[in-house]
């Protein structure tokens, strides 16, 4: 699944990002370099407030690095990358729109023709298990169903890369178990365009359960402290002794 190309699929090179805060320069990211291969599931973990969400926004091209570069398929990224979908912690659904309308938003914004919108929205609603909920409003949905809407919306623009910012942290523990499994199923589904996932999480166990590689970030201004490959067979078992070893190691790097 990992690309045989020499040049990495997605690459951050010596990225800095400074925010100006009431005239004061506030560095959030300093000297951060990271490569992501095609087909990889990468998790970013790091202390709270260290700059994880900022990093995802830079990857997507929503904000520019103050210095340094973002390369996607060897091309310098200058604006928003249309090949990326984003899933948010707070679901980011419009309360006055129903499930169908919330999912279709990204396609409508891209000016896709109505016939293709209908086809794609129906397809991805079905894929995430939301068929039957088309006319439900967000207030009628459980957290798990809300995040499926967020997933369908991100997937239906048919991105190559899915970015997820703490996608399960507003869900109860049991719903989280189910959604983690289902996101992994979608990642491995040959009918999905998404092959590569970058997920921010503050739960070490989640990072180890889901990803091929865990990138540990430093306190703000953040950079990569260490990258830890997770070679445990899938589906993974939290009771695997290797699991604890990895988890202790990541924990000690963060604290």
């Amino acid at each position: 699944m990992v690309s045989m190309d020499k040049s990495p699929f997605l690459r951050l090179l010596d990225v800095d990002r400074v925010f100006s805060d009431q005239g004061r320069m506030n560095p959030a990211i300093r000297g951060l370099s990271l490569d992501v291969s095609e087909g990889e599931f990468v998790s970013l973990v790091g202390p709270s407030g260290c700059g994880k969400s900022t990093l995802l926004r830079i990857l997507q091209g929503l904000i520019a690095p103050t210095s340094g570069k973002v390369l996607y398929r060897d091309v310098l990224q200058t604006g928003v990358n249309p090949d990326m979908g984003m899933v948010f912690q707070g679901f980011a659904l419009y309360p006055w729109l129903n499930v169908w309308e919330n999912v279709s938003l990204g396609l409508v914004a891209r000016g896709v023709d109505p016939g293709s919108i209908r086809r794609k929205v129906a397809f991805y609603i079905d894929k995430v298990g939301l068929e039957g909920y088309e006319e439900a409003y967000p207030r009628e949905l459980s957290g798990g169903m809300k995040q499926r809407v967020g997933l369908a919306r991100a997937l239906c623009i048919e991105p190559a890369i899915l970015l997820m910012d703490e996608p399960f942290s507003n869900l109860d523990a049991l719903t989280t178990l189910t959604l983690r499994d289902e996101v992994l199923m979608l990642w491995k589904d040959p009918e999905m365009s998404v092959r590569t996932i970058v997920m921010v999480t503050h739960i070490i166990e989640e990072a180890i359960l889901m990803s091929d590689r865990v990138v540990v970030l430093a306190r703000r201004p953040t950079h990569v402290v260490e990258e830890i490959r997770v070679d445990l067979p899938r589906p993974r078992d939290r009771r695997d002794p290797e699991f604890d070893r990895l988890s202790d190691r990541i924990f000690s790097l963060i604290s």
Partner: protein
Amino acid sequence: MEGDPDQYPGISKIVGLLKVLAEAGGGGDLYQLGVDLHLELGEELQLVRAAESLGFVQTPGGDITLTDLGRDILKKDINGRKKLIRERILTLPVFQAVLEWLSKEEDKSLPAEKIRKRLRETFPQEDPEGQFQILVNWGRYAELFGYRADREDLYVDQGD
């Protein structure tokens, strides 16, 4: 439909419970499970009862064990789970009753108020609001019912 959507046991939560049981070797002590999951007793029992009504767990004495069906569903993909749960939901008396009420209507639909009233009459031992929320949410999940919040009516989902 208004109200806290988490007052009924959602499907994703039930599947999560089954996963926890599978990881614990297929079962355990009901009381300990609640402690481990940080669930209040009321919430735990509601969830366990829902899983039991669908045939995914059994609760002999103070224990809880996964059934074969409960193990099977974990092995299925997203739509495989949906299909199996639909089959199970179709065996529940309350769903059978409501499907029958709706099918007798010319437009295959009934106002929420009528459904609640009939639920109170037919299943007096159950909480009608809880039953109604389950009808709407599981019914949507299983693609059995649709519910139009603005018109407050429940109808038979006949697919598109």
